[in-house]
Each structure stands twice: as structure tokens, then as C-alpha cells.
């Protein structure tokens, strides 16, 4: 069940380029499932006006060493909101709403998972890996980015026993090229029976991956992005069109949606990501 709660920034760590890990207190730990997200905004701040959606990178419940628990977000600084949480001091009060949305489905009896992530799209896979690893599953991750700095979360995945392969568009790390090539290679090399594809990244990448998965007959779940007004289903701002031409809410029926429900989904563009002050 989602809640609106106040917590605070416990730590912040730059992880290269515009990326940082933001650790908050975690009053919602008990409810979190991998793939869910939170809406985040500084407490009592009127600017920016709306809260910002971020995937839950890691959710650790309160314990003796971590009395407030830890809700970890991997954030890429792109605009006003992400710049603000990058710069306010540790200790600053933060309001979060969550956990929100549908988590990744983990089909009964599945034994193998393949993550395909683009850039900051890797965020939900750390929590997912932790859950799947707990079930003793075999997990591979294919991570793509423009450049080396855009390959985030690799260490965290590897620590959880995930086999990671990378591609960068500029060839600065891993294979030179796109993550879709890694995927095609992996499919050609043969994936374990019943492998689930979990995908999160830019629209274009998700469309491409969705198509590849379909051709290969692989079950595939996409974690979508959309500009969100509320995050909990009431503004109808975040919809995407499904196969039947119906709008589904990314915040409520998503963000995780089976790719075959969205063969042809109508993502809108979201502008240049800056809002005048």
C-alpha cells in the first residue's frame, strides 16, 4: 500500500558523470516490490511544483545498523528536480509517495532472467536482482549507454551474482555499439529455457528490444517512463496506448507492462526536459 511520508536524505554519492545514488530513510520498506517507484520532492518546497518519479534501486528495511532503513535511488541529473536533490545537504527533509505502480512479475517457477538496461534504466534491476538472487535464479544483464560513465550499477549487480555484459555507443567500455546487438548475440548463443526478459531504458531502445523479444518468442516486461502529474492514477497524464488502442496508466497499470501488450505503443515525446523558472 502506498503512503505519503516524510523522511530525509541519509547519504548521497556521486557515481560518475551526472549520476548519483541518493539514500533516503525507508519508512515504506515493508511494502516495496522490485520494479516499483516513488514520487519524490523536498519537503515544503514549492519549486519544482510537481514531484518526480524514480525507480527504487534498493530498499533495505530498518535494522540495528540502519535504524531508518535505506531507500536508495539512482538519479541522473537532467533538470530542475534532479539538480535540486543533487545539491541540497544530506539531512534535508524529503517527502516521498510510494511504493507506486506494478512491480516486475516473477512467474512461478522461473529460473532464468535477462535484464536489458539503457543508461539510468538500470535502476530498478538492482532490487530485482536481489529478489531473484534470493530465489537462486540465473541472472544475466546487458547494459548499454552512450559512454562508459553511463554504465551504472554494474558493481551492485555483480555483487548479487549477476553476469553483466556492456555496450557503449562510443566504444569507451564493453562492446562498441548498442545493447540490442548484445541481446541479439545472447539470443543467438542460446538462452536458458523460459528466460524472462526485463527491460528498462529509453523509448527507442525499449521498442527495439520489444520487437526482438517478440521475434524470438521471449516473454518480455518493459518498465516504462512517462511524464507524471500525480503518480497514483488520478490525473490521467501518464497514459500509453495498448494493443487495443486503450490508454493504460504508466503509474498504475505500469510502469511494468508486458511488451506484447504494447507492440505499437504511442509514447509521446516529453520535450527537452527543462521547465522555465
Amino acid at each position, binding site marked *: 500500500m502506498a503512503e505519503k511520508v516524510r523522511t530525509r536524505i541519509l547519504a548521497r554519492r556521486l557515481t560518475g558523470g551526472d549520476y548519483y545514488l541518493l539514500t533516503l530513510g525507508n519508512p515504506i520498506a515493508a511494502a516495496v516490490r522490485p520494479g516499483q517507484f516513488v514520487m519524490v520532492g523536498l519537503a515544503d518546497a514549492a*519549486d519544482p511544483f510537481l514531484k518526480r518519479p524514480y525507480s527504487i534501486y534498493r530498499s533495505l528495511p530498518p535494522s540495528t545498523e540502519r535504524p531508518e532503513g535505506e531507500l536508495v535511488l539512482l538519479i541522473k541529473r537532467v533538470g530542475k528536480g534532479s539538480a535540486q536533490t543533487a545539491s541540497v545537504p544530506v539531512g534535508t527533509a524529503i517527502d516521498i509517495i510510494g511504493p507506486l505502480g506494478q512491480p516486475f512479475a516473477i512467474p512461478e517457477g522461473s529460473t532464468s532472467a535477462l535484464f536489458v538496461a539503457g543508461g539510468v534504466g538500470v535502476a530498478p534491476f538492482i532490487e530485482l536482482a536481489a529478489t531473484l538472487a534470493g530465489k537462486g535464479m540465473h541472472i544475466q544483464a546487458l547494459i548499454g549507454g552512450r559512454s562508459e560513465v553511463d554504465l551504472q550499477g554494474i558493481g551492485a549487480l555483480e555483487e548479487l551474482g549477476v553476469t553483466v555484459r556492456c555496450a557503449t555507443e562510443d566504444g569507451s567500455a564493453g562492446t562498441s555499439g548498442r545493447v540490442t546487438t548484445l541481446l541479439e548475440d545472447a539470443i543467438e548463443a542460446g538462452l536458458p529455457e523460459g528466460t524472462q526478459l526485463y527491460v528498462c531504458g529509453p523509448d527507442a531502445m525499449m521498442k527495439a528490444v520489444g520487437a526482438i523479444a517478440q521475434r524470438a518468442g521471449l516473454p518480455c516486461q518493459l518498465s516504462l517512463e512517462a511524464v507524471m502529474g500525480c503518480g497514483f492514477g488520478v490525473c490521467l497524464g501518464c497514459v500509453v496506448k495498448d494493443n487495443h488502442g486503450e490508454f493504460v496508466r504508466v503509474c498504475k497499470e505500469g510502469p511494468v507492462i508486458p511488451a506484447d501488450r504494447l507492440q505499437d505503443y504511442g509514447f509521446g515525446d516529453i520535450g527537452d526536459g527543462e521547465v522555465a523558472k
Partner: protein
Amino acid sequence: MNGAQGHATAASPTLGVTICGVDFKNPVIAASGTFGYGEDMIDFFDPGLLGGIATKGISLKPKAGNPTPRIWETASGMLNAIGLNNVGLDVFLEKKLPFLRSLSDTACIVNFYGHTVEEYAELAGRLGEVEGVDFLEMNISCPNVKEGGIVFGTDPKLMATVVSAAKKRCRVPLIVKLSPNVTDIALMAKTAVDAGADALSLVNTFTGMAVDIRRRRPILANGVGGLSGPAIKPLALRMTHAVCQAVAVPVIGMGGIMNARDALEFMLVGATAVQVGTASFVNPTAMPDMLTEMGALLAEQGVDNLCDWIGTLQTP
């Protein structure tokens, strides 16, 4: 505290108001299009705490709405161009109304719209005869597809026609929701009342636009959208005041209300109740929080009964 729980003690001011003979246990109503059909926010608070709920705008047929992007943040506000996405009359009656009806102590206000005078009239007739519907709220900020797309709510004649057609068929009190995109809101208010409106609500959103200089395109897929939130509060408050001066029917004020103080401002200028929209997006407990604060603020002003506050603005 007590306000939010609905149990007034001797010390905490009475928040009840009456609109067209219907009692509201408090003056806070969820605004249309910002609270779904009442169920989506149940994680955050019991919707039965509210004085009333205005549903998403209902049309005869289901409506998919506009392509995305549908919303965009602006300075202290947001633009939306949802395109009146709704489940349509039949699904509403069958699947959505029962929940609202179950909140027996919270007024059920069904917001609706049409594309022609006939559609408005038909909806008013069919929605108004249903058990559990306390009010209809008529959204007239929609283009008339039969008359060159003029927005009903911006033309006095068109408005009079559509309001009286709806009123004829409507068996419950009819609230007309005014568009703020007009020269003379008081004139529009009088026109609506003369045509049969039992109450008025205002404001709907102000037409606005955002553009993306990188792509050289409007940001919203629809080109323009409606501005809501604190940015419009001074404008909405002025219009609410002007309308309360102009008509004798109850007025429900809205536009950028974020907290109890804002709500009391609208009631000070004459609104009998308020609706709260965008605030819930930013703070899903904005409405129950507001109820808690409202009692305290009124007590601070030495007011025991909200009714002694309404419309008591002194003008020089």
C-alpha cells in the same frame, strides 16, 4: 484534528455547509478530473472524510482522450490536456458509481460534458435520475461541435441554451462550472443562473501553452492545455469574488487551493464550499490536511461556525 475526523467537539468550529438543500459535513470537495471516481486515492485517506467528490467528467460514450504528453509543469502550476478521457456513462453507472454511493455521508457530484446541446441534455436526464447522485456539475468549457467549435462556456447565448436544455431534464440540483477564459465572468454567471443553474462552480482551467525550443514544437500533444495550481489562485479568487457579488445562488470556488488558508480565502470572498484539484497531485493528503488546519485557523480568527465566515470580506 477533529475536523478531519468529522467529529466536532465543543471547541472546534463547525465546518458544515448546505448547498441547494444538501448538507455537506465540510466544505472540501475533490475537484473533477483530479480524483478519478473516488477510489484511486484510498491508500492515502478515506474519501468518506470529504464533504463531496466531483467525478471525472462523464460523456455519453467512453473517451480515450488526447495523445501524450498530456501534462507539463509550469511555474507554480501545471498545464493539462487530458482530453476528457473517461469511462463513459454506462461503465460509470455500472462500475464507478456504486463506490461513490457507498460514501453515504459525502456528496456525490457527477461532472459531465457533451459535444452538442442534445448530448448535455441527455446526460443531465440520465445521470440526474440515478440513485446516489446528489448534484450534477456541468463542464461547459468544451467546444460545440455543431457551431464551429465555439466553447459553450465562453458565449452567453450558447451557454444559456445549453444550461436551460440540461436544467429541463435534470432532477437534482445543477451546478454550472464556469470557464475563466472570458471577458466578464459576472455576466456569464448571471446568464447561467438565469438559464436555470442552481449553483455555480469556478474556475475551470485557464488556456495556456508550453513550447519546446529544442524541437520547436508545442510540448503538449494537443498544442494548448489548461493551467491549474497556485499560479492561478489570484485570478480564480478575483473571479470567485466577482461571481459571488453578482448572483444569489451558492458558489463553489476553486483554483490553486493548496491549504486551509487558501480555502478560507475563497470562502471569505463568498464561496460556500471549495474544490481542490492539483493540490492532491503534489500532496495526496492535501484535502484531509486542509480539514485539520481549517478548524484551527477558524478558531484563531474567533469563528465558531464556518457559516459565519462565508462572504464576510469587508471592502472599503
